[in-house]
């Protein structure tokens, strides 16, 4: 299970969102798993074509994911994931 932490900015739209444990082997699966638990959450993180929104960052073990287009970055069983807004977005 990957453990996911979020920027508190997302609590504005998903008040119940806390630290979440998600079964996923890739970041794309993790986003879909989160969306099943919090319907609509994926649309806040990714574009319609599945790529990461320009001003959203996802870190796995404190390293930015490499594949912003397909979110194919692998997750280990106990990966720590951090989802935040990028400062590039102002």
């Amino acid at each position, binding site marked *: 299970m990957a453990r996911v932490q979020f920027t508190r900015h997302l609590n504005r739209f998903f008040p119940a969102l806390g630290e979440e444990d998600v079964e996923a082997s890739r970041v794309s699966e993790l986003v879909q798993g989160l969306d099943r638990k919090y319907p*609509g959450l994926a*649309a806040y993180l990714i574009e319609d074509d599945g790529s990461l*929104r320009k001003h959203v960052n996802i870190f796995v073990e404190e390293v930015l994911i490499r594949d912003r287009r397909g979110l194919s970055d692998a997750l280990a069983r106990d990966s720590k994931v951090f989802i935040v807004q990028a400062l590039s977005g*102002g």
Partner: protein
Amino acid sequence: MAAKKILIGSRKGLLTLEGGDGDWRFTRSAHLGNPVEYAVEDPRTGTQWAAIDHGHWGEKLHRSKDGGESWEEIALPKFPEGEKVFLAFAQGEEKTKAATLENVWVIEPGAADQRGRIYLGTNPGGLFVSDDGGESFELNRPLWDHPSRAQGMWFGGGRDTPGIHSVVIDPRDSSHLYVGISCAGVFESRDDGKSWRPMNKGLKAPFLPTPEAETGHDPHFVALCPAEPETLWQQNHVGVYISRDGAASWAEVSQEIGPVGFGFPVAVHAQRPETAWVVPGVSDEQRMAVGGSLCVCRTEDGGKSWTELREGLPQENAYDVVYRHALDIDGETLAFGSTTGNLYLSEDGGELWKCVGGNLPPIYSVRFA
């Protein structure tokens, strides 16, 4: 006089102004802190709609069925997989990117006989249509598939991609409608969106290799006269145009000497097709109030002559620009909001203006309910 209500989409939320007879008050605010790019109340149902740009988290659509008291987020439609945006003027090789919904530019409730019909005009140029009050939307394929789009004659104007900002329904026949696209031009359908044709004869596009091209024009906003729908007006990037033949041809009515030329919005009188208002700006390069003084220009003779209406508007050190959706009319009452957070209102056709809000956020849309 019955009380009127105005929804104001601003950089920092949705504001509601109500009043009449010189007494206007802000009665409600919603979505505070979030940019509301467009807000409208559906006259058929009272449902309010707001397009919100959450920046980092993307574009969202919200709906209120209790007059703005509570809001629910509606899933935005998606472009079908594999759809592409053609990037401007890519000669030789085809430069494209995946079509994703970037922004909802206008929300237009359908006609009275089309219960449940809602139009969304979007970037990158998709017209989405709902017939169930917004529960689901479908991309209008015939417009999206119009050959002019793949020919590179739809492109960004102000934004990176083309966008639909005007959806105009003929009050005599709801299957007859127009859309305004920046940049592509005005398109008309007479069969409820099953087919479309460009209606840009008479417009000029000096930014194109062929200024009289059939498409590739930049209407900033398009409106018709409800009592005489053969008359349409548009504030174009290039100037102000009128059509008296249902958009079959357009005539420029900008001033050679005088401020009427560049601008974004246009409002048309509901009964008098020759009467319209614009809010001129300096030029497309500068985009400021002309000479640092703000004026609304009105014509009552189809653009042969214009009257500068300045009473009550700032006449020095004004930098107000009025966006395309930020001027509206209801009877003889006009209201407009500016990029510098001023909201002006006139109850006598623009003769006298009053600032009813002077420290507001930048204003994107002003719509009478």
